């Protein structure tokens, strides 16, 4: 496959884009699955193996997605949201990677690893051939023109391609070209999706400074290259079309990581960080998505630079908290070097760059639905899901009720995890990725594809969502039925099963109870215990690659669409009410922002290395830049979550945007890991967004 791709593709070069990357294969249509590109040929033709090898498990697993219990994207292994191992390419170049692979092969005594080494080598050779074809195409274009500017343009592409076919980049331009090219090639060769464009401030600063010193580059030239580098991504976005009808056939995952700490705990923010932020603002980009890593050592000027777009109605930057994520990664077995180099791909899937793929977006699990299925007796549905849930009706104490709920959620999780482990183990047969694996750490030594667990780390993330529903429901039953005894458990269950109809007084009581985000110590304690228990349970399983399952707290637009299937829950939610994203409190309560942040900070987030996401919508009326910066610093320093999805908006503006969309084209809101123009959102997404708590 690699060789056929390399042999037959035609490089596409652009007169006005200084970089080379377009193979024309991204839209290669193989049986209608656009997003897998040419390298997806294998996967598309072999994914039936998933079903054939374990048909019953397969069906129940897919049913769980249809019934809004957990996602089945992949279905068992996330084939998307990867980060190409840029740091290895930037250090070794293709020839270095090849040498490492050969050395690994030479030393490897396991007899059944030959296929991997052969395929990986062919993959690397094919990529070298692809780059050389770009060089050749550029040379042809150069020779076909007399225009000096054109010749210079093609010459630069030609020389850079020739260089990168073997060696690591030696200049800032080559560094950017490297990131651009390998991002695309990663998307092409193996039928997996790349989401991360790199951490250019961290990865290219030495090249940039060396170029400046040697007089090879000026700051203005570098800024121009940065603009062009990011513009290509933005050009994929056709603002006349809805988001789900874009070139990428879906919400775009192109992410750029800036800022953060190095392994010694020193901030890496530098002049490139500022330039990328300024360019993103100047060009008014939505994509690439910038994920800005903060720490207590982030300088105030950068916080201000990050805060400014929000106050101008551009809610486009995602914030990652090194104070939470680095300790979480360290606790979960990463070295300081690997932990400090983390990226968040796609929306928020934390990956230790160059060493793993963390499978972060394949199996979001809805605690809200688990609570629904516990309360609403539905034997047929449970049968379809292959789940044997206990009934809570006979619980005579809160502990019994809690045990019933936790047993049920563990039953559902166990089924999901075991199915992933069992069915996912077919993945190396369905879609091995030798080229990608060869570029990751350790696969060269182990001789195993990353799908077989050959990479340095092989975690599989298990993101939970609807957390607030779970906690508030438990607290509601505890308080109402077993502490205050204002209603019996049976009465509570009847109320919920009837969607609260006829039980308005009871619902009122429930809504006035302590709840997640309200600053109540007992609720915090309960929340912490629940998460610790779930963490312990989830991490006791081994995944499809023999690695650990790791925990996360987030989900995607499922909070909108799964909500429609999720029935009333004891926290006061009615049928169809939206779910709560990540660790965000329920929208039925309106607490102070400080209570929400403190509750979030009380959680054992170091046990959630996959990420822990908090959504906050702030009212822009009267909000100053200083106040916003103060809030961001507080969020960082008290370690309130791994990621903050922030919006600064005004209700009046949203209402006017509904009435007069033409006057609000520039209003961009942060949704579920991505940003979009508010006026392009469908009715469901708009409603969900408007109903979020506004602080």
């Amino acid at each position, binding site marked *: 496959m690699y060789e056929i791709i390399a042999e037959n593709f035609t490089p596409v070069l652009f007169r006005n884009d200084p970089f080379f990357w377009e193979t024309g294969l991204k839209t290669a249509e193989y049986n209608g699955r656009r997003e897998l590109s040419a390298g997806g040929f294998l996967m598309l033709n072999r994914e039936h193996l998933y079903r054939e090898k374990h048909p019953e498990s397969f069906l129940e697993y897919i049913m769980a997605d249809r019934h809004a219990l957990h996602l089945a994207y992949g279905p068992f292994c996330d084939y998307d949201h990867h980060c190409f191992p840029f740091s290895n390419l930037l250090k070794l170049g293709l020839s270095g990677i090849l040498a490492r692979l050969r050395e690994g092969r030479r030393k490897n005594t396991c007899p059944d690893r030959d296929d991997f080494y052969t395929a990986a080598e062919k993959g690397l050779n094919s990529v070298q051939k692809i780059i050389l074809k770009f060089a050749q195409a550029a040379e042809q274009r150069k020779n076909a023109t007399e225009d000096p500017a054109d010749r210079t343009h093609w010459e630069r592409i030609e020389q850079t391609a020739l260089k990168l076919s073997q060696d690591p980049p030696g200049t800032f331009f080559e560094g950017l070209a490297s990131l651009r090219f390998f991002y695309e090639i990663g998307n092409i060769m193996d039928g997996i999706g790349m989401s991360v464009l790199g951490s250019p401030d961290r990865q290219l600063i030495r090249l940039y400074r060396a170029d400046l010193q040697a007089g090879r580059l000026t700051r203005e030239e570098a800024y121009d290259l940065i603009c062009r580098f990011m513009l290509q991504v933005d050009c994929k976005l056709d603002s006349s079309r809805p988001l789900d009808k874009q070139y990428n056939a879906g919400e775009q995952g192109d992410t750029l990581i800036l800022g953060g700490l190095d392994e010694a705990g020193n901030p890496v923010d530098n002049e490139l960080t500022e330039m990328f932020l300024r360019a993103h603002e100047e060009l008014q980009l939505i994509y690439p998505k910038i994920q800005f890593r903060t720490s207590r050592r982030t300088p105030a000027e950068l916080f201000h630079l990050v805060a400014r777009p929000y106050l101008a109605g551009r809610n486009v930057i995602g914030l990652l908290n090194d104070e939470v994520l680095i300790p979480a990664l360290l606790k979960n077995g990463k070295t300081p070097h690997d932990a400090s180099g983390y990226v968040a791909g796609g929306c928020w899937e934390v990956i230790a760059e160059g060493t793993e793929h963390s499978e972060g977006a394949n199996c979001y699990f809805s605690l809200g639905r688990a609570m629904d299925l516990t309360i609403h007796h539905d034997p047929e549905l449970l049968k379809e899901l292959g789940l044997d849930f206990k009934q809570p009706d006979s619980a005579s104490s809160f502990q019994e009720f809690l045990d019933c709920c936790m047993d049920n959620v563990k039953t559902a999780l166990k089924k999901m995890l075991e199915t992933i482990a069992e069915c996912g183990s077919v993945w190396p047969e369905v879609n091995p990725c030798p080229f990608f694996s060869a570029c990751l750490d350790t696969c060269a030594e182990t001789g195993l594809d990353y799908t077989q667990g050959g990479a340095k780390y092989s975690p599989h993330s298990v993101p939970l969502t609807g957390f607030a529903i779970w906690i508030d429901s438990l607290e509601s039953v505890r308080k109402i039925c077993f502490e205050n005894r204002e209603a019996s458990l049976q009465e509570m269950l009847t109320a919920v099963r009837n969607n609260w109809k006829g039980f*308005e*007084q009871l*619902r*009122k009581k429930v809504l006035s109870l302590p709840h997640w985000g309200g*600053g109540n110590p007992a609720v915090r304690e309960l929340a912490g215990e629940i998460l610790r228990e779930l963490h312990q349970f989830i991490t006791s399983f081994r995944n499809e690659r023999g690695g650990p399952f790791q925990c996360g707290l987030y989900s995607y637009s499922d909070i909108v669409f799964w909500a429609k299937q999720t029935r009333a829950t004891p926290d006061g939610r009615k049928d169809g009410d939206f779910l709560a994203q990540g660790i965000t409190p329920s929208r039925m309560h309106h607490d*102070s*922002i*400080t*209570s929400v*942040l*403190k509750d979030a900070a009380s959680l054992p987030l170091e046990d959630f290395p996959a990420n822990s996401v908090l959504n906050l919508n702030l009212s822009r009326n*009267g*909000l*100053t830049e*200083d*106040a*916003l910066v*103060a*809030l961001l*610093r*507080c969020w960082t*320093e*008290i370690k309130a979550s791994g990621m903050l999805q922030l919006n600064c908006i005004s209700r009046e503006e949203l209402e006017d945007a509904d009435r007069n969309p033409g006057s609000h084209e520039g209003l961009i809101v942060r949704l579920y890991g991505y940003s979009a123009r508010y006026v392009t959102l469908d009715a469901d997404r708009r409603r969900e967004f408007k109903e979020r708590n506004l*602080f």
Partner: protein
Amino acid sequence: MIFDIIKGSVHDGPGIRTTVFLKGCPLRCIWCHNPESQHFEKELLWIPDNCILCGACIHTCPRACHTISDGHHQFRRDNCIRCGRCAEVCPEKALRISGRKMSIQEILDVVLEDRLFYEISGGGLTLSGGEPLAQVDFAEALLKAAHHQGIHTCIETCGYAEESVLERLAPLTDLWLFDFKADFASYPSLTGKPADIIFANLRKLAEKKSRIILRCPFVPGRNDMSVCRKELSDLVWELRESIQHVEVEPYNPLGEVKYAQLGRKCLMTAEKPSDAQTARWIALLREVLPCEVISG
């Protein structure tokens, strides 16, 4: 007596703050957007739109103030003793009591919950209302307790109080958010009280080298005449050593609805000023003031 505590506020002084709203105010500003803050005693708010006619209030009321007939809920406010029992049982918050007593320690406990935020952001405690100076003993004790804990303190005030009140509170207050509501002559008609005491107190604070932010409500047609601008300019020039900056607060029509909920007559109705109107007024003030003028 307080009527609210808001944590995580970024609008009542620097940094992230906890604002304690004291109930009761000597003034009756015609544009007041928190009319429930004016009376010193508890009050009942009745919000008919929220009522679901469940009748729970009928059974709990000791004075038979509530009746439901022909699909309508009638509330006899003149009978009401504001015991709050109906508000406790109302499932949809159609009945709410404004005002509760809290001890200093109870309030301080709430304030201290966010200490870490104050340290990081340079925030603290703000006393607002209503009028904090009207409950001087309480205010003094709370500010003292906050200072004792190393917490930055701020008072938001209309300035109408005896001089002795300021003497007691000024040493405990790190920042004053002092209202400048109108020109001198218009104070009685617009606020119900004369301005002489108020301006004298402002001068007193400046003499004490207190740090002051002037807060100017902007109510087009009422307090945006040139005489108002002139007096503000003269005053700020006179006291410029103490005045950090001026904040303009556009009129908020929220209060109009609340008057109805309290069963009281609204003193004024008006539209919220447009952004352009507010920007123009701020520009006019910037023209004549020696300090920064910002939108609150």
